[in-house]
Structures are given as structure tokens and as C-alpha cells.
């Protein structure tokens, strides 16, 4: 992955900008920025599997949705629970679900993997829809953001959108960093190696299923955490957290941003949210335009937005040989 870095100066400026953002942005844009960060975390989880692992789980939003519902149920039924603990439980809730889904899906490869994963998502969606006493179906449920008490800083009110932004920023940064560091570990390396040629990896003695199963389960942490943050931010959960549109959005973001680079999903999420914000003010059918942009990127711009900054040194996912 050498040569894939934005230069250090650029990164420094980006971090300072992100930290100062609420000081000069109007409220509505802090809102958008928080939303972008949450989607970015979700897309990072997707990118871990797609960009680095060569797995394409169309139904990845299942894990996002599980996180969203777990967080909502905790906020609703245990309103006094310490916020970091809630978020931790939410993040962990993604693991067993991802393990079950992964256990079935990873038996298949390529296109079949993608669509089985989609089938699991539709299954969970049906449950969220039909189990009204728990999840309230389409109507959804509203929850309240609890405040956050920190030892030195004292009580941080989460009524303030700036505090929500900072909390999200910290969590998302930790998530992206964890993902980045994970890929440097031997497990991460062997996972990437299986993207290139899984059969060869298995001849070399790696257990392809077990490796992918482990990473797939772990990816549930980030996806569920993103779901939990989403509910925390929106103070609302409904089947829209686990439906197909949410599922597509993460695919669109990651591919448009540039899969296989740790910043691709962040750029993709930013583009997606801004583009949506702009074009949905012009037309009700913004989906068509988003889809056309997506198809255009898939066919003609496979490096994604991030390749504009990396001098074309991004690994191109589409132009490799068939199979594997």
C-alpha cells in the first residue's frame, strides 16, 4: 500500500479543519458534516470488505440496522446508561450478527456472496418491519440523546449539535484509525492477499474461510457503531435504517469515493451527502441522477474521487483479471 498516502501536510490541515469546522460553519452545515462522518464510518466498514477484501456484501446495511436498533432500544429502555457503554454494546452487537451472516455468505464467492448478503438484509428488514411490538415497523420510534459525562470536561450536553459533532468526529476517527492499523497486522495482510487470489492464498496454507470470517465479523463492529451513532444523531430509528436505499447509499459512497484507499469512503460520503443535498433541492427524483453518477464511475472512473489526489496510484479494482 505504499504510495497511497496523501502527504502529511495535507492530512494535518485536514485534521485542523475538521476540528475547527463548528467554529465558522453555520448550524445546518455542522449537521451535514456530522451526517457525513457517520456515513463515512459505515462506508469504512464496507470498504474494509470490498476495497481491501474483494468481497462485495450488498446487504452490509443489515449490520448498520442492527446497530441502529440496538442503540435505539438501549436509549429507550435504559435511558440512564452511560453513553460510551451504550455505544460499546452497540458496536459489539454487530459481531454475532455479522458472524451468522458471514458463516453462510462466505461459503459463496463473487456475485453469489453479494446477493446472499442482500437476501439476509431483506430478511432482517422483514423482521424489523413485522415485529411491531419491538421495532414499531415503518412508524419507527423516537429516542432521546443522553448527555455525556467525562471526567475532566464534566457534563457535555448533547443538545448542542457542536458537541455531537465532536463526539462523532472522535469516534469516527478512532474507527478509521483502527481499520487502518488493522490492515497492517498479519491478519489484515493475509486478508488483502486473499483479495488478489484466494486460491493461491489457500495453497500457501492460509485458511481463507476463517480469515474472511474473522474480518467479516469484525467489520460488524464499525457498521453497527455507525448505525448506533446514526440513531444517536437522528434521535429516531425506523425501517429506513435497514432498507435497501440505505444499503445502496453505502455502496455508492464507497465506489464513488474510491475503494481500497482508507480515505476513499470519507470522500465518497462527503460527495454523496453534498450531491444529494444539492440535487434533491432541484428534483424529487434525485435517485436517478445519483445512479447515473454511480454507473459512470463504475464504467469510466474506477479509481474514484480519491484517485484525483493520489496520482493514479490507487489499486484499480475493476481492471484485474476475472476469477479469484
Amino acid at each position, binding site marked *: 500500500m505504499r504510495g497511497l498516502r496523501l502527504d502529511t501536510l495535507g492530512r494535518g490541515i485536514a485534521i485542523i479543519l475538521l476540528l475547527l469546522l463548528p467554529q465558522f460553519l453555520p448550524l445546518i452545515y455542522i449537521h451535514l458534516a456530522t451526517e457525513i462522518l457517520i456515513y463515512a464510518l459505515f462506508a469504512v466498514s464496507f470498504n474494509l470488505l470490498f476495497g481491501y477484501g474483494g468481497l*462485495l456484501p450488498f446487504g452490509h446495511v443489515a449490520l448498520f440496522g442492527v446497530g441502529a436498533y440496538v442503540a435505539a432500544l438501549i436509549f429507550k429502555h435504559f435511558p440512564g446508561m452511560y453513553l460510551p457503554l451504550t455505544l460499546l454494546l452497540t458496536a459489539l452487537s454487530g459481531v454475532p450478527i455479522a458472524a451468522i451472516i458471514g458463516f453462510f455468505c462466505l461459503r459463496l464467492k463473487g456475485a453469489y456472496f453479494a446477493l446472499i448478503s442482500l437476501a439476509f438484509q431483506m430478511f432482517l428488514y422483514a423482521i424489523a418491519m413485522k415485529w411491531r411490538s419491538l421495532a414499531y415497523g415503518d412508524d419507527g420510534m423516537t429516542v432521546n440523546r443522553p448527555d455525556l459525562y467525562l471526567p475532566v470536561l464534566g457534563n457535555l450536553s448533547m443538545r448542542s449539535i457542536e458537541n455531537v459533532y465532536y463526539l462523532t468526529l472522535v469516534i469516527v476517527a478512532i474507527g478509521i484509525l483502527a481499520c487502518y492499523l488493522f490492515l497492517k497486522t498479519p491478519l489484515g495482510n493475509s486478508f488483502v492477499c486473499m483479495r488478489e487470489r484466494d486460491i493461491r492464498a489457500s495453497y500457501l496454507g492460509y485458511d481463507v474461510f476463517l480469515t474472511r470470517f474473522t474480518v467479516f465479523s469484525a467489520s460488524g463492529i464499525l457498521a453497527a457503531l455507525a448505525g448506533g451513532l446514526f440513531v444517536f444523531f437522528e434521535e429516531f430509528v425506523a425501517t429506513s435504517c435497514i432498507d435497501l436505499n440505505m444499503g445502496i447509499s453505502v455502496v455508492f459512497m464507497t465506489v464513488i469515493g474510491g475503494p481500497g484507499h482508507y480515505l476513499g469512503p470519507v470522500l465518497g460520503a462527503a460527495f454523496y451527502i453534498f450531491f444529494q443535498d444539492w440535487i434533491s433541492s432541484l428534483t424529487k427524483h434525485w435517485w436517478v441522477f445519483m445512479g447515473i453518477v454511480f454507473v459512470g464511475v463504475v464504467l469510466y472512473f474506477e479509481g474514484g474521487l480519491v484517485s484525483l489526489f493520489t496520482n493514479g496510484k490507487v489499486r484499480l479494482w475493476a481492471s484485474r483479471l476475472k476469477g479469484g
Partner: protein
Amino acid sequence: MDYSFGIYVIQAAQGLVYGMLLFLVASGLTLVLGMMGVLNVAHAVFYMLGAYFAYSLTLHLGSFWLSLLISPVIVGAVGVLIERFLIRKTYTGGHHQQLLLTFGLFFILGELVRVIWGTAPLEVPTPELFTGSIPLMGMIYPTYRLFILGFSFLVLLGMALVLSRTRIGIIIRAAVTDAGMVEALGVNTPVFFMGVFGGGAFLAALAGVIAAPFLSVYSGMGLDALLDCFVVIVVGGFGSLLGAFIASLMMGQLHSFGILWVPKLAIVFQFLLMAVVLILRPTGLFGEKE
């Protein structure tokens, strides 16, 4: 007792009807998958387009039969254009590019349908010839469903004859086994791919048209058909027409008895079937290659 037995027969017939329709949609998907290795996510949209065109054509021409003739031809042409100008660009790319492209197309076309026809369910009137009902096992059974059965059976027969008795059929079957070798033997495979893709779209649209008076025409029908077709392909085995046929009939029965027994969670049965097949035989019932 007699009465409840009648219910079972009716449900089984219902499942058969649904299974046959499903097979018409899934067969094109299976052929394209077998020949080109492209799992076309957008395939179910052809089914939906067929139904929506049937609605508009029936409305303007006043004849269901004309729309049964015209609608699949239009959709088949759409399929040919999509293959020629979009999917063909991805043959040199990986599976992921094809998947993402067809996935994107699925949503663009689905959204376009919503733009043009709106989101409210539409009704296509049953053709007059088949508005009646016949008594069956002490219950009443609409003749239109018998027409669906007969018609889809004829299409199935026609397809089997084309595949097994004609030169085109031989080339298609050979291309499923080894497309590269067929090309080396001097067959213009790009044209064949285009034709099969269009043919698959045609069949899916045909299913959409005859399903339109039976199920209503709604904007979610593409997604429903996509998921069902996909379970059919996984259960039947990748690229196997026989497998797809048997799996379609199984899905039809599960669908219809699932709704009878557990109305709210009928999807669970299809899902269990898929999970069991995946555990016991990951390549599907009749699949050999992955």
C-alpha cells in the same frame, strides 16, 4: 375435511402458477449467467418493465393480447441496448464491475419506472376471454390462472425445443460450457451474447405481462422478483436450467403455503430453504461449477 383439502389443492395450484412465472424470469437470468458469467441484478427490472408496459399498452390499445405481443419486444430491445452499450464494456473487467453496474442499473431503471408511472399500484384488467372461473375440488378457480399455467408451459416447451433441436440452441448450450472455445470455432459470440441477453429480457417481460392481471403492478415488484430469482439460482445451482426449473417450482409452493401458514413471515421459508441448501450443497441442487 373436504373443504380444507380443497384449500390445499388451490394453494398448490397457486404455487404452481407462481413457480412457472418465476421460472420464466429466472431462465433468462440463468442462461446469461451460464453463458457470460454475468449475474444481471437488473434482470428483474425487465419483468417489472414488462408489467408496466402491459399496463400502458392495455390502457391505450384496449387489448391485453396486443400488449402481450408488443411489450416483451420493447423490453427485449431495451435488454439488447443495455448489453450492447453498457454490459459489454465490463467483460474485460472483473465480476465486481458487472455486479456494480447491473446493481446501479437496477436502481436507475426502478426509479425511472417510479418517475413515469408513479408509486401507486396499478391494475391491469383480466382479458375477457379468461374472466370466468371453473369449479375445482369444491372451490372456484379463476380460468386466468389456468391460462398462465398453459401459456408458461408452452413457452417452456418452446424454449426446450429451441435449446435442444436448433443450431442456435446448440451454440447456446456450447457457450454455457465454454464460451471461449465456441468463439474459437468461429461463432460471433458478442452477437450471440446480445441475442441471449435480449431473449432473457423478452422472457422476463413476457412473465411480467401475464403476471400483471394476476398480481397487481407495483413499484416493488422488481425487488421481490429479484430476491426470489436469486434464491432460485442459488438453490437450483448456478447456470443450470433444470435446477432453476425445479427450484422455481419449489419456491412457488413455499411461497403459497408459507402465506397460508405463517402469513406474516412467509419470507422465512424461502430463506430457510436457501440456508439449508447452502449448508448441505453450496453449489446448489444441480450445480457443478461455481
